[in-house]
């Protein structure tokens, strides 16, 4: 029963993370909290479920890819402007240009930067707990 509830909760935590990420530029939340919420959702799976099943469910074997990919996305956003002789961390649209919005989501490169942060934070949390949980048994605490 516990593991079923936990499994059912995971998509919702991911959705909450996604919402925090999308709304980050207009309201409370940012890439870090988005990644952390999703990561904690994953930790819940480790606590509630069988280890092997949990790690498959949350994509633990992809943790290094999340870490490296997230960093890559962020660094590309930060450094790409250098190629056009602009200072690093130049975001688009520029202050005088209009921003296209989809509901609360602003189509802005800063949001893309936050996507990278969220991926890396998710990867870090899942990667850490994936290493710490295997020998854990309920009666040892």
């Amino acid at each position, binding site marked *: 029963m516990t593991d079923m509830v936990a499994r059912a909760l995971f998509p919702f935590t991911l959705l909450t993370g996604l919402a925090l990420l999308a709304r980050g*530029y207009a309201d409370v939340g*940012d*890439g870090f909290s988005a990644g952390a919420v999703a990561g904690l959702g994953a930790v819940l799976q480790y606590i509630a479920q069988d280890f092997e099943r949990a790690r498959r469910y949350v994509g633990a074997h992809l943790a290094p890819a999340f870490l490296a990919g997230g960093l890559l996305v962020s660094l590309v956003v930060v450094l790409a402007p250098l190629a056009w002789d602009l200072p690093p*961390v130049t975001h688009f649209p520029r202050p005088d240009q209009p921003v296209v919005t989809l509901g609360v989501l*602003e189509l802005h490169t800063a949001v893309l930067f936050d996507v990278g942060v969220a991926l890396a934070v998710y*990867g870090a949390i899942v990667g850490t*707990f994936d*290493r710490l949980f295997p020998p854990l048994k309920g009666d040892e605490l």
Partner: protein
Amino acid sequence: MITLLFLTGFVLAAIVIGFIRPSLAAASAAIAALAAAGLAGASWTAQTIILIDRAWLPSLGSRFVLAFDPLGTPLIVFVTGVAVTVFAFTAAYMPRHLEEEQREARAIAQFVALLLAFMLAMTLLILAQDLLVMFVALELTALASFLLIRFDRRKVAARRAALTALVVTGSSSLLFLSGALLVSAQTGTTVLTELMDDRAAADISPVAVACLILGVIGKSAQAPLHFWLPKAMIAPTPVSAYLHSATLVAAGVFVLQRLRFLLESAPPVLDGLLWLAFLSIGVGALLALVTDEFKRILAYSTVAQYGYAVALVAIGGSHGAVGAPFFLVAHGLAKCALFMAAGAVTTTTGEDRLSRSGGLARAMPLLAGASAVAAAGLAGLPLTIGYLKDDLFIQAALDRDAVTAGLAAAAVALTIAYSWRFWFGIFGGPRRDAPRPTVGLTAPVVGLAALVLLGGLWPAPLEPVFTQAGSWIAREAVSVQLGYHLELGPLLWVTLGAWGAGAMLALGSNRLSALLRAPVSRLSKWLGPAALAQRIAAGGVVLSQRLHRLEVRDMRDRIAAILIPTGAFVLLGLLVHPDWPAVGRFGMDDVPAAAALALVAVAAFAVTRPLKHLSFVLMLSFVGFSLSLAFALFFAPNVALVLALIETAFTLLFLAVLAHIRRPILEEARRRMRRDHGPVAGTIAGCIAAITAWQALSMPRPEDEAIAHIALSEQAHAKDVVTAILADFRGLDTAGELTVLVVAMFGAAAIMWGRRA
């Protein structure tokens, strides 16, 4: 710009060829150096030609400016030109050396690549027209020198010598950096052409000038920072011949010449520099007279000779200004030849000490002849380029006063004495049989000796080049005649006097050496910088060990070691703050947040009591959660959310880690937990932190960055200021932190995998 690309291209091509075909490494490097020398020579003009001028560190007023100018270009030609002979020598010397060291023959490619990298760094230094670019180039030369000295890395002495050189030249570079940053703060620029403006120069403090000067003194192996140079002689001979006679040590004096204009406003620094120069001449010459190893004699002679060059910069005037750059070239040619001659003799006979050699003139007549010319050049005898360097030196000293002239004459006499001792000690005396050195070992020495002779016989082409260089240093047109001054006058008398004294010292050099050896060695043991450095290092080790023991006793001590100094400084800052104790008013609105903070304080206090580990973790998480509540009440929902998430993750993390530790270990740790003054210290520290935070947060000022950020958020199309700061205004910091996180994660994972394996 094209010139620069070509120059770098030659060098890179040579490195690549060297790694593909190690047997061609030295030859391709020699060709690259020749091409670079030709390119630089063809670019010589009396004007400054800007090669590149790019924005670089604008907040410090620094620009990446490289230029050919009358001062630098001749030195580039020299540095790359000498490299040709050094690479030729390398081709003959290194295969045998590598064999003796039992290393693979293809290691020569690595060696040549390092020498080429050094050549490139040296060229960058000479081209640089900005203090911070010069700093980077100085560091690059130090790095290349470190790698070259420890090339025979199986020798402990080589590794140790490399480290000494790196520490001395590298740490003196830090002094140079401090000077450059001071200059930047005082004038808003580090570009030389802008600093040469008299108004800018007037703003530069003597402290900044002194930092810059002291920063380069160590590089040129000037007393009392000379001790790294003789130790560095453990390096393969091409390194000694190239770096430690002609280029690396010249780098410091070259920078001194570049910055001569800064010294004009600081006469005391100039006087100090002159005394330091004569100290180096004295120390270097004395040690060169008593040392037994070939290369070490030459190293001490280099210490003394660069004393000449520093003295010329310090004295200034037309002779000083022309003499300083000319000296680098004249001395470099002779010294490089002598180093290679010493290396050739050692490679051929296996001997590297005067006491065990001598009488080799018959066995190796060509090498003996060429090195006699080079030694005469070092000693400043007529018909060699060395005569002209000493002539300028004595004239500059005479321009100043009689005392300086007397000291200069003594310096010349001492140089003659140790030059003779070196040459006669190897080649003179009763005949001794030895194998003949190979052509590859002899030819580069002969080539350089020919240049030493040519410069002395036909100085006319050198005159305009070095007059222009001198004019660049003096910042006005100077004119000096390079040639033989035979008219009766003080110059001739001082020169003849110096030669006479030198001849007498030379003839009695063996007896003099024997006489001086004991007192000099006793003095250097007692007062020598190496001994002094050793004593300081020993004291430092004892102190550091004591602090270490105190610090690592347990976790609390470790944290205290960070927090106590921090707290002391903050308290000091609060006490001397002019507005003390200015804090904002406390109103009814602040009550909920203050209550939440009180909760944090209670929880934090409880953590200091000895608890079970599980309760400890829970209590610690309570601190975090109540802090998150306080942030929420302070209208900082973003921070509150992040803190709550982090706290949740860390509580789980702590629990997971605790589960990995076996129960007996936890119980043992709990028993050892001491009841000490933790709560008292924590309360004091907390109160100080509270006052600081209250002071900072309750009275925001219009110029505070936070308020500017709020205003800027709108332009960044953000309604959430915190996200705008993290992703935009401070995006580079966030990217840096993210990089650290990812690298640390991969590092930790590697360690854990390693354990499992």
